[in-house]
């Protein structure tokens, strides 16, 4: 195994706008990278280029010293020793669960007792041993998902690709599957690339998150890093909860803006404005703060989510332990903001 390197990767389908342009990143060996972005941002195209279903129009993909693809040619997918969980799971309906899981072994010429043992092993990891002789049509969505995962597990692949694998599952099942993926990653040690538009999934599982927008890579960092120090409006708006305020701040100040500076910015309206990301957990009720108007208060179970409006008409989010009436003015302090 080795690290996976995307080097100035670009893909243009000839539609006028490149689907992926100039994406460079390195996934360290055994890393779990989440490719995060809104639909149509090119993340699935990146995944399909890594798998070999699409050929890059420019740039290259390397796995350690091996070049997998560049503009002049590509190693066909069947020669890459990768595995993938498809959004539709892509289970073959004419084969049993065991045959589905064991197919990559069969192609590699492994038969008989060795085949039996390895299929059984893979199925036991996803706890589906008793379903070995069923057809995919007889399984539930979550079970099909686990069969697809077992198929990835069976031949220790160098890279495992996951294309929005949880998109079709309900919330309850999602949490259980996230746990399964984490366990799978820890056990197999394979490099994993996980495409999703759900930042919650990305945060929960990945060791690194790469945010894409309109075909470009915006930022790549670990989940705590990208949450605390997002780069630019797109990443700030996509990762975690929060609101972006346009505030008149002094140029060249520190990126982490403390309350006194924020308070000053609220008091003075003039000056060049800068986008500041404010997380809801940093907005707290405090009698020394500025007055904000509560525009909505939604009960979320463990707390209330508040929407607030400043005197200047900008919107903020905050949490509260108790309900507040809509329309009231309350003092709040913004403990810190992040200059995007």
């Amino acid at each position: 195994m080795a690290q996976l390197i995307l080097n100035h990767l670009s893909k243009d389908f000839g539609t006028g706008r490149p689907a992926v342009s100039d994406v460079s990143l390195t996934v360290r060996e055994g890393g779990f990278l989440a490719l995060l972005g809104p639909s149509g941002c090119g993340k699935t195209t990146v995944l399909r280029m890594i798998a070999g279903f699409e050929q890059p129009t420019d740039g290259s993909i390397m796995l350690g010293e091996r070049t997998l693809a560049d503009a002049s040619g590509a190693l066909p997918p069947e020669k890459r020793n990768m595995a993938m969980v498809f959004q539709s799971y892509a289970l073959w309906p004419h084969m049993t669960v065991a045959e589905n899981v064991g197919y990559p072994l069969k192609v590699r010429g492994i038969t008989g007792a060795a085949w039996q043992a390895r299929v059984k092993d893979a199925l036991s990891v996803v706890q589906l041993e008793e379903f070995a002789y069923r057809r995919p049509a007889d399984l539930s969505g979550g079970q099909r998902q686990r069969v697809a995962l077992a198929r990835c597990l069976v031949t220790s692949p160098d890279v495992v690709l996951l294309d929005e694998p949880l998109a079709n599952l309900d919330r309850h099942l999602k949490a259980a599957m996230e746990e399964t993926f984490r366990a799978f990653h820890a056990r197999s040690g394979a490099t994993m690339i996980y495409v999703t538009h759900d930042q919650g999934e990305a945060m929960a599982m990945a060791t690194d998150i790469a945010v894409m927008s309109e075909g470009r890579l915006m930022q790549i960092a670990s989940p705590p890093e990208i949450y605390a120090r997002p780069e630019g409006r797109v990443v700030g708006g996509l990762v975690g909860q929060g609101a972006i305020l346009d505030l008149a701040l002094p140029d060249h100040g520190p990126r982490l803006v403390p309350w006194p500076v924020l308070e000053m910015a609220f008091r003075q309206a003039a000056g060049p404005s800068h986008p500041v990301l404010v997380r809801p957990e940093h907005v707290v009720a405090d009698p020394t703060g500025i007055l904000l108007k509560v525009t909505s208060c939604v009960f979320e179970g463990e707390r209330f989510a508040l929407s607030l409006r400043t005197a200047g008409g900008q919107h903020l989010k905050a949490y509260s332990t108790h309900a507040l009436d809509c329309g009231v003015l309350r003092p709040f302090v913004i403990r810190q903001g992040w200059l995007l």
Partner: protein
Amino acid sequence: MPRLSANRSSQPAWLLPFVIIVVCLLSGLPLARLLYAGLRFSLEGKATGLFSEPSTWFAIRNTLATATGGMVISLLLGATFAFVVTLTDIRAKGFFSFAFVLPMMIPPQVTALAWVQMSGPASPLLKTLGIAPPLGSPQPLYSLGGIALLLGVQHAPLVFLALKAGLAALPRDGVEAARLAGASPMRVFRDVIFPLAVPGLIAGAAIAFVSGVGNFGIPAILGIPASIFVLPTLIYSRLSSFGAGTFAEMSQLSMVIAVIAGLGLVIQQRALRGRDYRIIGLSGQSAAFSLGWRRWVSEAGFSLVLFFVLVAPLAALLASSLVPAYGVPLNVQTVSFHAYSEILFRQSVTLTAFANSLFLAGTTACGLLLFTVLTAYLLARRPGKLANIITGLIEIPYALPGIVLAVAFILLFAAPLPFVNVSIYGTIWIILISYFSSFFAVSLKPVASAFLQLDPSLEEAACLSGAGFGRRMRDILVPLIAPAAGASVILVFLIASSELTVSALLWSAGTQTLGVAIFNLDDSGSSDLASALSVLVVIMVVILMLLLELLAKHLPRGVLPWRN
């Protein structure tokens, strides 16, 4: 470092050239040859005599008259059936659909023969019932009207299917909204349903017209005895009286047929312009109007029509296959299986025809499947302009009247093959190649729609599992499209085994097909043998159709021509 191939999504490099070569050989080459001959003979003025002969103009007039008449009858019959079956609560819809479409699958020469046996003065059926006209009175079907009537019956299912496909997409909520807006059922039909059904009607009319122009079996059985010639039968008679200018004349006449058929399609295009109503809303379950007491009337009416277009002709066919001699009434004393034992055990002509047709149909159906699977795979994986051109090239030989295709193949193979210096003209191989060309589209359609319905990730998952192209085909793709491949084989076999038009021009002694044998037996006055052979063909057609019905639930929508 591993070798990188410039190959997209790991299809083998030979696939595209292979498909292009096959399509060019089967479609491009004969079409180009025909076009070249037509243009060359026109420029050299070789067949100028043709257009100064009145018989040519009579044939053109007859073709237009019978095709137009047939189209009108098809429209009336097909539209009525389609509207009632799709829109009302009439019972036994499945049965009515199947029975109404059956005439389309029965070879036209058999239809014609059956009607002749039903209506003439010598009809065993009428004689048995004691209502036959006196001997010597003319057979009413040996006329332009008779030809048009039978063309209408034969092609009414085409209108029915074209319209039914359109009506099935009609949104139920659109109809319900009109009802809530206060419109009566008749009003809804006039204001909502009929306008939306017009494109289907036009398309159906065009197919019926073009099929009527190219039909050979019906005018051959009904027209030739009365010396009424249409263009396809004129070509046939010119080939029979082979002379110096025959090739020039035949290619000119086929160009005329192609032009008339093409004009029909152009008129269709013009009529359809501006009528592209994209149906929005929930289409699925189509609207059902309650007929009330008229349900009985409709069901009785349908049964009556089906009796006359299906039951009575087939009963007459059966009756005349069971009488010992021409003109004898059928009863318990006279019933005889002589004709069957004759064609099945004694006549070498019919036995050869059986062997030839089964060989031709079987080889075409199975052989084409190999090309079809590869072509359909390529078309599904590589959509775009090239795929459209390939599809178009495959469809032209099927859309073209069979007689035109046959002439193209005669022109192509009249001279010995280059390099090997062997002539396949007059052998069974020229028929086989023409069948491959003619039925490529029939074979392709079910397999292509199966590939299009297949989730591409099923193949991609196999790719990542390490399976190469051959392996993926064998383990994943072929098992998944197997029902469609089966339907493709049966459909081609069904149509090819009783085919007449192409083989009528291409057969010679020893290579006659079932279609040709029926035609020749009738032509030589052995109507009992012709009827017996036709009965066997009809039985075979029905069995194959029922076999496909059994497969139906495993097939993609629209694969079986009589279901949608």
